[in-house]
């Protein structure tokens, strides 16, 4: 869907988080003459015993930046939707021994659904965010492309956007490298120009992940064993570990370092092995569920493309076979290390992000590696 309105007649709602990226997003759109509205989204209440919450601080930054740019600003509360759609999923996945990706879910269900609907109810033509991705609105369809900054490209997290969602979004930072964004913010004197980037999952923030998770899920310590059943120590609870992880195992001694190979949920055992390139960490195909595409043009049943299995990983050549029920088998050109159920598999054709799904099962030589989940 291509819009042919002039910028001044085009209303764009910018999702402003109080960070430098969304600040510059709003600035750039305002400079291009769009009718820009800044909206802060509150998804999580982390108010501490002193009544301090990070959302308050972030919203203060949104106010300062919006006033500097000269745009109206508002806030909207999606705490309930976030809890129901993202946090519940997040806990359920951990309970199932998998490693969820709440950012993908947040984009799919909150930012580009609840928030997009809110923006549209305000008469917006587009919703813009500070993601490092590009979207081109063509005559027939909108196409999502990787951000030009390889290091920051966020299409991995946006893979679940549908054509309908994509047709209503703008990613003005997709053409920029992160240092350029900082520079624009500094030159414009934006209040957030030198603000530290947020890290980690939004609702956990800078807190200790283990401590946070233990507040919601009971941790069950258990044994740590090699694939041959040799006991190597104890673990603090399977949910604290992810496939391929090296740190925090506490296995000393000489020789190669130890890594998480898998989990035996039934026995509550964490499987570990030596060597980064441990053979048991490698697989050659996977089954994905909730597979969706950014284009409405039907895909052939089988096609070749490249794929990413985790954020900031180089692409791997793959063959995708669709099963017609939202599931797909993805076969890799080369074995890939530490494929992790619960994470996203994202498909690319050159720079175009085709879509993706959730990794459900992992295979090697035709057999399922049930120890990875």
């Amino acid at each position, binding site marked *: 869907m291509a819009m042919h309105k002039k910028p001044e007649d085009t209303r764009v709602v910018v999702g402003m988080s109080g960070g430098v990226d969304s600040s510059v997003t709003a600035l750039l759109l305002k400079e291009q003459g769009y009718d820009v509205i800044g909206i802060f989204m509150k998804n999580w209440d982390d108010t501490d015993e002193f009544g301090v*919450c990070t959302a308050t601080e972030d919203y203060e930054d949104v*106010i300062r930046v919006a006033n500097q740019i000269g745009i109206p600003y508002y806030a*909207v509360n999606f705490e309930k939707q976030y809890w129901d759609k993202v946090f519940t999923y997040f806990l359920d996945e951990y309970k199932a021994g998998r490693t969820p990706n709440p950012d993908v879910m947040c984009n799919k269900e909150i930012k580009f659904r609840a928030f997009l609907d809110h923006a549209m109810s305000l008469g917006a033509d587009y919703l813009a965010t500070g993601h490092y991705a590009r979207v081109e609105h063509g005559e027939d369809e909108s196409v999502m492309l990787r951000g030009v900054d390889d290091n920051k490209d966020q299409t991995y997290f946006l893979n679940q956007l549908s054509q309908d969602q994509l047709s209503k979004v703008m990613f003005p930072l997709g053409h920029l490298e992160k240092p350029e964004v900082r520079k624009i913010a500094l030159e414009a004197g934006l209040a957030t120009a030198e603000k530290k980037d947020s890290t980690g999952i939004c609702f956990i923030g800078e807190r200790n992940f283990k401590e946070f998770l233990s507040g919601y899920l009971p941790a069950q310590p258990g044994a740590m064993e090699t694939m041959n059943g040799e006991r190597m120590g104890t673990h603090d609870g399977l949910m604290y570990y992810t496939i391929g992880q090296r740190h925090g195992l506490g296995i000393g001694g000489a020789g190669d370092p130890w890594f998480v190979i898998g989990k035996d949920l039934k026995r509550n055992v964490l499987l570990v092995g030596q060597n980064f390139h441990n053979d048991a960490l490698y697989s050659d195909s996977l089954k994905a569920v909730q597979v969706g595409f950014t284009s409405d043009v039907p895909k052939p049943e089988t096609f070749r493309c490249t794929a990413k299995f985790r954020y900031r990983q180089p692409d791997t050549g793959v063959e995708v076979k669709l099963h017609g029920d939202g599931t797909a088998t993805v076969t890799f050109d080369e074995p890939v290390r530490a494929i992790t159920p619960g994470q996203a598999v994202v498909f690319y054709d050159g720079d175009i992000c085709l879509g993706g799904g959730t990794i459900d099962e992992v295979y090697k030589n035709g057999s399922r590696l049930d120890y990875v989940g």
Partner: protein
Amino acid sequence: MNGIYLDHAATTPVHPEVARVYAELLTSSYGNASSIHGTGRAARKLLDDSRAQIARLIGARPEEIIFTGGGTESDNLAIFGTAEARSDEGRHIITTGIEHHAVLNACKRLGKRGFEVTWLPVNREGQISPDAVREALREDTILVTIMTANNEVGTIQPIREIGEILQGHPASFHTDAVQAFGEIPIEVGDLGIDLLSASAHKINGPKGIGFLYQKNGTKLTPPTSGGEQERKRRAGTENVPGIAAFAKAAEIAYESLAERHEQHESFKRIMTDALDEAGVEFRVNAGQAQTLPHILNLSFPGTDIESLLVNLDLAGVHVSSGSACTAGSIDPSHVLVAMYGEDAEELRNSVRFSFGYGLSEQDVRTAAEKTAATVRRLSGK
């Protein structure tokens, strides 16, 4: 700022005549009212005149008026001042669930400091029952604090009846009249009130000025320490130009009381008639209860407040709802929760329209039309 301002219950523009007095005094009457020289005495005279003028309006004696830094400070002075002065006599406080945060949070804080607070419920029209006060009253009750009229839905509370119930009981009776002062006549003696809070900026006066009426003989230990201004009840150099401007604003408000009452009632009718004509579904929060004439709180089924308020703002209709949370998004109004319960749809779809200085009938009509168009679009009708 383009837009029709229908949020006079939040704050008001300063009346031009008040602004003239205020601006003139800022440069001409800068003296410290406590100074012994001529410059100080001139300020002192202005202060005394203003005090007498305001006292007269509510049927009080001049020495019963304590000027403060605003409504919140007046409420805090009354509540913490009473608690501190009378904690030896008892530690029980009675209030309601619909008070302004200045009272609500002050009482909550006392609740954490060993005082026991009884929170009276309200009915669906936002009114408390005098019988509930009678039932809640105990031997160790030292303070009853109930607002004169609610700031969100406008419901006027049965202050006189409560005052009668408290006759013969030693508890101090405080009423937060910040929203009511200057909108409805208030005679403190007639109502049996010991303490009453009011604020200048709600009645076209400047921000940062208020007063607390303290009936002679009512015990109060001020929480702030400092100089001996305001008969040792409110330390700090008096803001004489602001106080004089407050007196001027109060005088204008009282002179125009009947006229504004009538005008605001007509604005309410214009608003509701226009919405009716446009076929918009709405309900009046406060129902048939007697309300302040300038406050009209409406519920629009099928809309969501977060979208409705932003849309109205973008359409140039400046209204409000509930109370803004610190992160900017709208928390459910505690007043509506008290009236309807936690899960009521009114919590998600109510808007407060409040009228005041400078509004014309045409403004109200235009705002009503824009509101109708927005509500119809959002509710899909």
